């Protein structure tokens, strides 16, 4: 019996339409828009001005604090303007707009195809390098990677977990990356192991990707300490807490972090970016984006420069189909619909999903029938119907007592609800309010 996490979970239709299409490099667009806030934490501060010439890989925005990340130019050209643009959610956000001229890379970047296995840097230097190169979690959460690798004093990390689960339906970018860049990923994993000073790493892969499991298992034989862990199919296995439970059987107590049970989780995409950053000196300037959808002409996986308009990426896959109802950034479970398509691809854009009108529309909600399906599928062991109710009523202390902050917003409850109740919508609302109260309380306690 294959391993998986212990509570809850659902089985949405996988729909991995683009799994068979190899990663193609998308041509560099004429103009790129590079947002300064592509990560969780403080937005980076621009260090270029209008009219400056930049090369590929040049630092254009400096990280503004510990929880923040550098931003590098994904193209060579001239900075056209630094201004606010309308982001995918309709709100304004600052971006550096660069007009592309040629494709001139910084000389320090090793662009050769040679695979470099020898790790020369010391652990502290690796973490520093990862920070410098602007690496963030590539699974979609975009948490700055160097922060996760800086283990707080008094805590010990003894296991590195690599997330190759890709439990979101439709998405295949990690799958393709594992097939095509397997060795680089495993070198990246070894680098991360050295940085964290751990002897064991587990790469969790769901068994709907047998080719990736086979490929990596074969390669892992020549690496020490890396175990490829096939996992049973279940959403949301890619959640940090679920993946740790599935791979090494440790449950994280309420309100604690993975490091509290001695684990650090990184995505396979991040491991690949770590390889490129540390061995090839290449900052995070491009990523694999999966463009998919049932009615899309050619579901594909593209290697896309950061800042490329989503519109261009969709065009390369055959254009927006006529019956398209929603274009979602990320997967169907946790992704967010774009309000318009002139939005740049950012470090966390793992997929672009085009859903048909019929598929994307939410059904009319009706009353809760107390079937408790949401309770049985919640991977955090919460009571979603109750959390939604108390959040809607504004009973925030009750919501806090019911551990609303443990919700990972995976959407399993809304997915499974036979009454189509927007449970997660209300839980998020309550979570936001309770979070604000907790932060205010922490600030008051500090004083």
């Amino acid at each position, binding site marked *: 019996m294959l391993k998986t996490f212990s509570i809850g979970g659902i089985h949405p239709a996988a729909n991995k339409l683009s799994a068979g299409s190899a990663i193609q490099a998308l041509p560099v667009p004429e103009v790129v828009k590079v947002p300064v806030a592509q990560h969780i934490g403080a937005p980076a501060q621009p260090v270029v001005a209008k009219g400056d010439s930049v090369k590929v890989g040049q630092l254009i925005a400096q990280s503004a604090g510990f929880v923040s990340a550098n931003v590098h130019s994904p193209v060579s050209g001239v900075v056209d303007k630094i201004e606010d643009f309308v982001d995918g959610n*309709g709100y304004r956000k600052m971006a550096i707009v660069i007009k592309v001229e040629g494709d001139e890379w910084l000389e320090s970047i090793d662009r050769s195809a040679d695979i470099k296995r020898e790790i020369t840097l010391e652990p502290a230097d690796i973490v520093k390098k990862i920070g410098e190169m602007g690496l963030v979690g590539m699974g979609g959460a975009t948490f700055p990677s160097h922060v996760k690798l800086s283990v707080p004093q008094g805590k010990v990390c003894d296991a590195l977990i690599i997330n190759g689960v890709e439990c979101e339906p439709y998405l295949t970018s990690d799958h393709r990356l594992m097939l095509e860049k397997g060795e680089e990923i495993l070198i990246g994993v070894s680098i991360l192991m050295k940085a964290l000073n751990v002897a064991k790493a587990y790469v969790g892969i769901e068994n709907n990707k047998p080719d990736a499991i086979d490929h990596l298992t074969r390669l892992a034989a020549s690496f020490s300490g890396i175990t490829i862990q096939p996992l049973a199919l279940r959403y949301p296995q890619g959640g940090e807490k679920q993946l740790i439970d599935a791979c090494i059987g440790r449950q994280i107590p309420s309100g604690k972090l993975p490091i509290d049970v001695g684990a650090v989780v990184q995505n396979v995409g991040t491991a690949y970016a770590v390889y490129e950053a540390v061995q090839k000196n290449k900052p995070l300037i491009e990523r694999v984006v999966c463009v998919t959808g049932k009615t899309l002409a050619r579901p594909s996986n593209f290697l896309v420069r950061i800042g490329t308009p989503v519109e261009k990426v969709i065009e390369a896959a055959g254009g927006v189909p006529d019956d398209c109802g929603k274009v979602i950034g990320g997967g169907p479970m946790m992704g967010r619909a774009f309000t318009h398509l002139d939005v740049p691809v950012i470090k966390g854009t793992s997929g672009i999903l085009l859903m048909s009108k019929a598929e994307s529309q939410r059904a009319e909600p009706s009353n809760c029938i107390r079937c408790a399906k949401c309770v049985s599928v919640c991977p955090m062991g919460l009571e979603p119907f109750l959390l939604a109710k108390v959040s809607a009523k504004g009973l925030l202390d009750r919501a806090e007592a019911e551990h609303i902050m443990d919700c990972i917003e995976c959407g399993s409850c809304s997915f499974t609800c036979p009454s189509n109740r927007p449970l997660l919508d209300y839980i998020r609302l309550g979570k936001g309010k309770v979070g604000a109260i907790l932060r205010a309380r922490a600030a008051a306690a500090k004083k």
Partner: protein
Amino acid sequence: MNVVLITVIVLALLGGVASIILYFVAQKFKVFEDPKIGEVEAVLPGANCGGCGFPGCHGLAEALSKADDISGMGCPVGGAEVMSKVAAILGKEVAASAPKVAVVRCNGTCANRPRLLNYDGARSCAIQSAHFAGETGCSFGCLGCGDCVSACTFGALGMDPETGLPVVDGDKCVACGACVKACPKGIIELRNKGPKDRRIWVSCVNKDKGAVARKACSAACIGCGKCAKECAFGAITVENNVAYIDFTKCKMCRKCVAACPTHAIHELNFPPRKAEPAEAAPEARN
């Protein structure tokens, strides 16, 4: 018979003992409360709306009785009338404050502001605004899910199905401010009720540059500043591409209303204008 007698005697004894214990306990743990708190609470409306910023009417009564200076506090529901009664009970001075009313600062009706997207999530403005900026091109305007309406405990707000915007019933509104807090876009403002209920306000909060705002909504303030130039009393300021009329300085001349190219400035309860707007202005000042 005997059984009944014994039962009655036992119960009577139990009751007697318990009452003696309770009497002493009550004496021991007595909490003194200023009797004035009760008196003040009796004149307060008892709606417990929280509009004063205290937890219910009792909270306000307690705060009023304890404070040396009550000029900063007040019941928005009862207004000056109730506060003068409170002042009489407490023997304290109370500053007269002008009655206020909630004003919706958005005129993005379905006709003025075309809908570009379709939101099918939970019907709540707070949730919608957390997801995205809104169904129209304006990221500042009303979302139309009616969080303000459900927040109002006085039935003073309702959604106009034709415009998709909330409408304030000036007679029912007590300016408790619950809707102001409920609106995630900060559209609703408490403004002076004005003489004869006459009010002038800029019905837009869009901070986008003029062209962008105009493209999203034909009734948007484009920050052109014409109204500010027209105003002889310095009541209008334009900041972040949006005009704001300071109701404490406004003399209700209505010149700005006529000057606004997008008709973003609204007037309420004024007599109809004469043919020439310039002549109507001095009349309105009376």
